[in-house]
């Protein structure tokens, strides 16, 4: 049977070190230093930066260079069909469409890059929102316990059980606004509404397990306020699973977004996200495989890199690792 160790309290995140007058700065400085030593994490960081930059300026460059935009359907009917990557209409090699074209003759590269803007924004913002809500709710429930915990977690259970589709349909009916910005805000509300639930459960489980450890008991005994204990001591110690779960949340919200666009929420065609490009591509996988491979690969590479970055961050922020 595992017994709590008799050794003194585990060092805490932000504990004052000999060389650091201000704890917070030291934490981040140290983390960045460690992160830079992690080659995979650096690689991940570089790729993510590249993808972000390409998504931001790529469509503009392509339009200047070739005239293609995400919604440009060629006027020549002969060009309105799917072309494989690097292939001209006559079958010879061409740089015009490095990712080929879709059924309407649109340049897939332009669509993938523009889709990246949407998917990355959706993935990162929604995950951030779910992190904030999930950690706050989960840590509170786990730390306070008792009736509060009971009430919060039953509330979470209710949210799990309400038919999500109906919520989205109703949201759209009432607020399905006129403006594109309104649609986007609605999308984040819809995505944020679900993605924090499991996060909250995970944080709560961790906090419940941590709160009887000596360093927390010690902090409580010395009269540190609850909010400070949660923020300074408990949350940093749950960051491992939380960061891992957050990196898992990014792909799942990206895919959820393509489901919501089925209900009419989110960006409107001809704009497409990575999720919806992949969903379209899969139908044609036996016929025009590049329509799946190109967006799918871009998405996979980005997620891989984000994940390496996430792992690196996890290790860098890990209070125990720092001790070594």
């Amino acid at each position, binding site marked *: 049977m595992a017994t709590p160790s008799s050794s003194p309290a585990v060092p805490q995140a932000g504990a004052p070190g000999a060389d650091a007058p201000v704890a917070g700065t030291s934490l981040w400085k140290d983390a960045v230093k460690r992160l830079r030593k992690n080659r995979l994490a650096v690689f991940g960081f570089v790729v993510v930066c590249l993808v972000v930059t390409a998504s931001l300026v790529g469509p503009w460059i392509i339009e200047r260079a070739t005239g293609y935009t995400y*919604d*440009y*359907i060629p*006027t020549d*009917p002969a060009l*309105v*069909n*799917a072309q494989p990557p690097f292939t001209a209409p006559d079958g010879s090699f061409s740089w015009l469409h490095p990712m080929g074209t879709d*059924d*309407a003759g649109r340049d897939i590269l332009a669509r993938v890059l523009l889709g990246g803007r949407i998917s990355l924004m959706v993935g990162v913002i929604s995950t951030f929102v779910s992190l904030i809500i999930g950690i706050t709710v989960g840590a509170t429930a786990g730390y306070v316990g008792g009736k509060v915990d009971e009430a919060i977690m039953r509330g979470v259970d209710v949210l799990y059980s309400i038919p999500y589709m109906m919520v989205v*349909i109703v949201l*759209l*009916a009432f607020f399905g606004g006129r403006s594109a910005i309104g649609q986007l805000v609605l999308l984040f509300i819809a995505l944020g509404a679900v993605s924090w639930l499991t996060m909250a459960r995970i944080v709560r489980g961790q906090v419940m397990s941590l709160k009887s450890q000596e360093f927390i008991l010690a902090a409580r005994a010395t009269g540190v306020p609850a909010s400070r204990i949660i923020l300074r001591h408990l949350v940093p110690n749950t960051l491992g699973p939380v960061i891992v779960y957050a990196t898992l949340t990014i792909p799942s919200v990206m895919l959820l977004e393509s489901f919501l*666009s*089925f*209900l*009419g929420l989110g960006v*409107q*065609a*001809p704009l497409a996200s990575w999720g919806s490009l992949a969903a*379209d591509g*899969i*139908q*044609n*996988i*036996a*016929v*025009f*495989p590049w329509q*799946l*491979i190109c967006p*799918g*690969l871009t998405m*996979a590479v980005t997620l891989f890199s984000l994940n390496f970055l996430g792992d690196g961050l996890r290790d860098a922020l890990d209070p125990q690792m720092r001790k070594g």
Partner: protein
Amino acid sequence: MGVLALALATASAACTAGSADSAYFGKVTPPTGQEMRYISGSEPESLDPSMSSSQPDARIIMALFDGLTEYDPKTGQSVPALATAWEPNEDNSGFTFHLRAATWSDGAALTAEDFVYSLRRGLTPALAARTAYMAYDISNAQAYNEGAVFARDDATGRFVMDPANPTERLALPGDEAARATLLATPAMAIARNKRYVAVRAEDVGIDAVDAHTLRYRLRQPVPFLPKMVSHQFFRPVPQQAIERHGDQWTRPGKIVVSGAFIIDTWRPYDVIALTRNPLYYDAAVVRLDRLVFYPIEDLTTMMNLYKSGEVYATFNHTVPSSWTALVKNYKDYMDAPELATESFVFNTTKGPTTDVRVRHAMNMSIDKVSLARFRRTVKPTTSTVPLNMFPGYPSPMGDPFDPVKAKALLAAAGYTNAAGEYDPATFPVSEMEITYNTSESNRSTAEFIQAQWKQNLGVTVPLRNMEFRTFLQTRSRLEYRGIARSGWIGDYMDPFTFLSMYMFEGGENGSGWVDSEFQRLLNDGNRAQDPAERYRLLALAEQRLLDAQPTLPLYNNATNYLKKPFVKGMWANPVTMHAWKFVYIEHDPSKWDDAN
């Protein structure tokens, strides 16, 4: 990396599986016996012919219940079935059908009384059948279905007749408050202070003259009635089974049928298996022993099941348009014009589209030939009634593709700059949206149209997709901005099924357009004795519709589906309703390429 490897593997799999040495798509292994396996679309809502309202249901009902007439398996026109012959009265307002000797699958005789029972049941308000409106042209049918009352003069014992149609009794609302309001209007003075008696089932205009003679009395001429009665709503249902089992009567073991097959197994969302009905009147021609329907909705899944040889045919529109390039070279590919028109409607009640010039301009600036080419399996059209579907029908043509004229029209509508020339910047695109219900093909079409308007008019109309039921409400309440998707599959083989969409007030067509002259032409057409004269009048009505342009016809669909070569007796017809009794499995490969 892994994704790439997998994708490359699948890509090569795709190429090899569709190898060029075979004339057929995927596995071609006929079953050992006479078993047909067919993908019928969504899970049927109901297999009660009176209750069902959707095509997937109708495909299965075709095997279970026969009608007075049936769809010809090759042309979709009506052919004799339970009725062997029929004749109209002098003005097409009454029809007499002569029935063959037939029995239900439990051995009971199927007589004219069964038709009378079935129609009365179908119109019962408490049953709330959705397709009951199909029968509204039968005398007093609408009044009975609406729970209306007749006005009777106690002194004379006579009913007050309808001033608009003197051969019919006047029907008043069953609800007292609504009736009082109506009676207060001057035109209804004739119906005041009478005894109001509820319309009964017996009042509906259907009579069993004798066991094998059935007569319909109609409130107005309906020359296409023999075509209409192929619709499932008119098919007879077994009184004995319904009275015994209530709404469970269509379940295996309880169901009694009049058609070639009877349900053996029904597992929702999984399978509906039918076996032969030995008591079917035409049992001698039936060759299948087993007919299996799979309710499946996902197109890729259908293609997979078909290719691996697990199913032998699919229902219509099942080949994704991007697959046609690959599939159409195989002999499996079945293609024929379909009784359907895909179109958009304009909101004629608000925004720029209230102006008929704007509607014409938007129609003219879409290159429908290119659109059809892009959609691959369809034929371009500028008319509402499908082209070349009805021999002798002089289809009027709508506007041809003409972007120059379109711009001129928009300029005339006031979208001009200071110099009086057409200026796209003045066109209020913010008040327009191309609204459609979510589906891959609707989206492709909408995107293409958006690009056309961008190229030809210089305006970018935003797209907006909605989930189906939200879309239906938005369209029928005319809450959409500018343009909404609309499509119609004909209920029966007559131009009227397309034109009647625009006949009544209340936004049935979603455009808000109503025109009394259009209605008059249609009514006159239906009263005409000479079929050629009728078609001429209907075509005049269609011309009026196209002139007013509440609708934007795009293309006529085709029935693209797949069928294994060993499935015989199944043809691509415009209604894509298959007469299952003629379908069989040909085990001799040398006969697979024969014409039928």
